């Protein structure tokens, strides 16, 4: 059970890492590469300064998941 859980965390982690690489590179960022302004701010600037904290949030969630799993493992060991 716990192995299965650990594996799926690892899979999710790899997926997120790949997505992270895609999201900050060509061609994905090219979507935001234009002359229009959103709220008076260039879209690329807006994209990075919103996407960045979002990615930090994902890391935070991921860390929480590891904590949960290791706590579960500890409990199992205690039993």
């Amino acid at each position, binding site marked *: 059970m716990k192995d299965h859980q650990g594996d799926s965390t690892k899979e999710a*982690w790899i997926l*997120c*890492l790949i997505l*992270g*690489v895609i999201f*900050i*590179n*060509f061609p994905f*960022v*090219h979507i935001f*590469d*234009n*002359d229009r*302004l959103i*709220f*008076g*701010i*260039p879209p*690329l*600037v807006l994209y*990075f*300064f919103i996407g*960045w*904290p979002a*990615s*930090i949030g*994902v*890391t*935070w969630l*991921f*860390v929480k998941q*590891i*904590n949960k799993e290791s706590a579960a493992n500890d409990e199992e060991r205690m039993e």
Partner: protein
Amino acid sequence: MIPGHIVLIISLLYFALLFIVAFYADRRRRQGRSLLTNSYIYSLAIAIYCTSWTFYGSVGRAATSGLEFLPIYIGPTLMAFTWWFILRKMVRVSKEQNIVSIADFISSRYDRSALLGAIVTLFAVFGITPYIALQLKAVANTIDILSNPMALAPDQLGGLAAKIPSYIDTAFLVALVLGLFGILFGARHLDSSERHEGLVVAVALESLIKVISFIAVGIFVTYGLFDGFQDIFQRFFEQFPERQNMFRLGTEQTPYTKWFSLIFLSMMAIMFLPRQFHIMVTENADELQIKKAMWRFPAYTFLINLFVIPIALGGLIFTAGDISQADFFVLTLPLSAGHKWLALLVFLGGLSASAGMVMVSSVTISTMIHNHLVMPILLRIKLKGQDFSGLLINLKRLGILGVVFLGYFYFKIIGDSYALVNMGLISFMAATQFAPAVIGGLYWKRANRKAATVGLCLGFALWFYTLLIPSFVLSGWLDKGILEHGPSGIELLKPLELFGLHGFDMYTHCLFWSLLFNIAAYLTFSFFAKQSATEEIQADKFVNALRSDRPSPTKLKRLSKAPTIMEFVELMSKFIGEKPANAAISEFLENREISSRGTLSDHEIPKLKTFTERTLAGYVGAAPARIILENYLSTRGSKMEDVFDIFGSITISHASSREQLSVLYDTSQLVASGNELKDILDNILQLLSAQFKFDLCVIRFLEKETMTLTVKSQQGMSSVHFGQSERNLNMETYIGQAFLSNVTAVVNDTEFLDKPTSAEIIYREGITCFAHTPITMEGEPVGVLSAFSRTVKGIFTKEFIALFENIAGQIAIAWRNDKQLHSLLEVHEQEREMQIARNIQISLLPTNIPAMEKVSVSGLCVPAHQIGGDYFDFIPREESCFDLIVADVSGHNIGSALIMAETRTFIHARADNIKQPAKMMHSLNRFFFDNMDCSDLFVTMFYLQYCPNVHCLTYSSAGHNTPILWRKHKKRIELLDADGLIFGIRPEVDFEQKAETLEEGDTLLLYTDGIIEAEDTQGEFFGIDRLGKLLQECDALSPQETIDRIMNQVRIFTGLRHFNDDITLVVMKALK
């Protein structure tokens, strides 16, 4: 403007504050309440990544190239996401191996290669020292800006450093202060694996100042000078509509390839820059902190970057688009708005950014230089005998100052050049070259030393050629021709368009080529070069570092002529000083979970060797540590060998005083001397009584037959009742109690005795205190060591008893060595006896059967082992008659041989009286039945008598294999069968006696079951049919030739040279 001296005073005050904080942190640590348990400090310290190059430079970059400043921070955010797997593994490995730097890490992974360590160090020095120059420059410039804003005129900026009055060379002062700070917190002690808490806490504080000051300026610019983000962008676009593509990608300035390269470079830099490695790996106090740092560090970089664009744009708006001073917008904006204190805060932020980097880098690089360049040289010089721990620490301090001042001179000599300004990315690229060796080493077992060495060298060669040379050219130190036409006009080798690869910025170009060569060499050599055994072990330790079920890869080995604990301690103190060595060894011994006796078993000695090596590695690096240990052991003649468990329970005390340890040491030397047991025991007792003034010491061993303890050695006063007498085993005496309960019996004052039997003797002899300790081998008592004193009371302290028990343990080893020696001799003796038995047995067989006129006989007996149970014999009788006997005693041991001898004796003794086969068989059976009923052995026999004159053959059989008779004229095989039971089963057996007449050319074959039961590889027997056919084929051969032929065929059949059972063949052929 702020007067120069105030800036200097404030800077010094700031350093004083850092110093106090650092000092406090060190004190907390000594009290055991380490600040590093706080995970915020770890996360903040990692932000040492943000140097002044980013603190000031980000704004400069944003103002000149727009978004290009971002990848430097986005990359680490992405990398931080992998930390739980990669960084944690690095930390785990480094903790296990006492790794102190990235050079150490790479060298350790690849067979502790001293060469690799030196290569990494050299590259780090080349690639990173100039980066220190950049920091010094930033500090010097900002001080000048604060104290003399007028100097900021664009045309003067370049020559700023030179304009500083010679009597206050700001950069020199800064270098000096930072160098001293580095020494104070990086090299007060020698152990670089010991965490530098003060330094780390100071760095964390600096990081805090950096982010606070930057955000403060950001808020001031965004909301003080302007009206929020939107306002800034709006005014900027109004003023500079042509600069709109600053916020675009894929432009000429920032193509996507460059964007990608910068992200990749910074991802590698955050992991592999020596200072990052130091803070993140070496100074890590707890793996769990990594989890928190994974999101806190990116959050930090996000915060510090949030206002970069507003400040850059604000600066551009205020300076009418002048980018020449863009690097210092952070400082000049508040300054020109008259907010001196804010400017001062920013200055402190920038100072922090520089100072942190310079201090940690200098400590890290000087450690690397010390461990990988200086130590190997020192070891080669071999300063014999002296304690050079003091020299080492001073060398390290000198190294820190040296590195900082190397940076300073770099700055003085090349000043404000292209190369210096871009040193940040150039050093990132250098750090990236470490990536294949580190990551490959962590995840790929086959990666080996050669691969890493060649990969690194190629990577750095390409780095030098495609990045450093072009930047030197752009700084104007080299001729431009090399960039435009290639070296000596070879276009293909143009540093910026190597092998014709063009259209890329120089970072992408360099990244591509350097990594391509680096990785290609790394993979190729890993596939084709072989690892040594030690490297394989290291590889396993690295690759499987995170596996909890990791089997211990260390096979059980022991050290021959192992040094004692004291010798290990002495060796360590020579390099690291006495106190740390003692501290280290007691830590080791504490971790051992040693027995209640407070002792350490000999199995632990190889571990102690590893521990010593690891400890030394913490001070001098892995490769030198290995060299030190190897040299040391080889001069002693010790080497690791597979366990032959003689010293299974040798025990050595740790809580003993020097003299006690020396007794222990001498004892172990005596035990290892290989002298006679008696001599060893006598010497040990002499040593004991001389050293501790005992009046009597006795060693008794258990005599198994009488179950008494018998004196084997005795030293001191002699007394019939005391030292020389045997002791019975019972609980009424102290010695009996010690032996039976297997616990040391101590009486420190004989006025309080509870065993009347002992008391009588003890009072008579005037003993004041004594102890008996059991001598045990594998937990079983085999004897008792006793010591008595007439003069002193209370000599047996807890500590002393431990020593006493240790000596008993060593005596046990001497005893066992002696026993093993004797059993070895015994085995040897037995073998000799078997050889004698074999010779005797062979001599019992008829050596040559006489040649006769009318018959020819040959025989052969091949025992399967040294001695066998087969037997054949030839007994001549009158009128040229003779008896032929073939017998088979089951088994091939001494018992079989004895029965065979017995049988022979019986037959020879009775042959004169008993003339007929059946009668002989009858009396043999009687004899066996009467005498051998208790043995499991049985005997079969075929007995024949032949009279060649009348051609008459009479025979009897006792359950023996039927002999084969080849009738030449009738061309027929006959089997000679006669009724009869195996010997010794029943008292009375009727043995049938048959008779045959032989004609000329008839051949008779007698044999034992060894021949027909010979098996081939499929398990099929040779069998009687095959034997009969073979005999038929031998029609024309003589008996001896027939035997040879049969033996050959059987050998071919089984495919073996040797047989599992004894084989006997006797062939008789009737002539004329």
